[in-house]
């Protein structure tokens, strides 16, 4: 696999959420608005890249039998950094994401990439893999958030700027920003993704 393939792998072919169906809890829970979803995507991407770098750097000194606890300690260190930084930098986002910020530590995507990629490859490839997977996750979760926000609230906000507002005449379907909407949009997003792949190949 060349470097470019390593990078794009996570965005399309092995998209963690849509194809591998992992990391579901944060994906569904924070996608009530595009802003929250994007914040979650960035936080998870940071942890993913940082833990990939460190795990790949120490992989030669990591005993095989206790690698999983070591991965977990490394990951939870970066999660704690994100937790405290987000609390200070953006309290509103922190309150919206709630328990899902510390829960990044059990996000299967991060432990999965540590085990399947960073533990076996050099630091540079691991950075590329982390960025690619991170973009794949962020894109999926933000798309889901944007779709739910448009239908359920008639707006799209990203980084606290209002990008789109369908105005007064639009009657939003509130169910889409409530929990059932997450499952519904996710199901149709997966079906849509499958149709796209089928048409291509």
């Amino acid at each position: 696999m060349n470097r470019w393939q390593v990078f794009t792998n996570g965005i399309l072919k092995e998209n963690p959420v849509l194809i591998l169906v992992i990391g579901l809890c944060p994906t569904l829970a924070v996608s009530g608005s595009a802003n929250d979803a994007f914040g979650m995507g960035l936080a998870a991407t940071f942890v993913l890249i940082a833990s990939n770098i460190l795990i790949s750097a120490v992989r030669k000194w990591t005993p095989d039998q206790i690698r999983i606890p070591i991965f977990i300690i490394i990951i939870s260190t970066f999660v704690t950094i994100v937790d405290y930084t987000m609390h200070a930098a953006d309290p509103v986002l922190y309150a919206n994401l709630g328990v899902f910020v510390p829960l990044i530590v059990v996000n299967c995507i991060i432990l999965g990439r540590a085990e399947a990629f960073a533990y076996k490859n050099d630091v540079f490839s691991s950075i590329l893999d982390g960025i690619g997977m991170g973009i794949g996750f962020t894109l999926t979760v933000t798309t889901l958030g944007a779709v739910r926000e448009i239908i359920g609230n008639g707006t799209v906000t990203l980084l606290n700027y209002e990008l789109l507002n369908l105005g007064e005449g639009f009657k939003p379907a509130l169910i889409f920003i409530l929990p059932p909407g997450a499952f519904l949009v996710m199901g149709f997003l997966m079906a849509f993704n499958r149709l796209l792949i089928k048409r291509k190949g």
Partner: protein
Amino acid sequence: MISNDMTWYMIILSALLINNIVLIRFLALCSFFGVSNKLETSIGMGMAVIFVMAIASSASWILWTYLLLPLKLEFLRTATFILVIAALVQLIEMYLRKAMPALYQAMGIYLPLITTNCAVLAVALLIIDYNLGFLNSLIYTIAVAVGYTLAIILFAGIRERINIAPIPEFLKGYPIIFITASLMSMAFLGFSHLFGL
């Protein structure tokens, strides 16, 4: 929101139905979608989750109150809890294999899966966030775990029917499962604001 001045049955109702951990709070989805294809396996998984969750969150409550708080080590919360849970699951597995082989047969294979079950860590963190006392947090934890079991057993029953139903080609597999979960979630949403919770 759960608080100490709620009565025990309100805590149970809130954790079990109104804020159902799977369908409303979106936790433990991996195992919810992963092991719900048969009714039998989902009952086993549910029992294992109740068992582990009760032990794990009592242990993390004690650690938080008597070790991390007095020593001002709050920032170690996430790391401590996840390690405690992982170690506990290992211990429980070893103990069950030795002491209760029948029970181990019934839920042994699900125990390793629970380490990555985000609901266990989430409940351990939530009882700290809600500032619950020990007894209340135990009630809350068990109610949450029973809520998980309820959701996964109902879901497994529906999935066994879906398997023999005619479904459009592009919705087969995961898409239809998510849409089903959406309908179940809608049903549980009907419980919201029950008793003003």
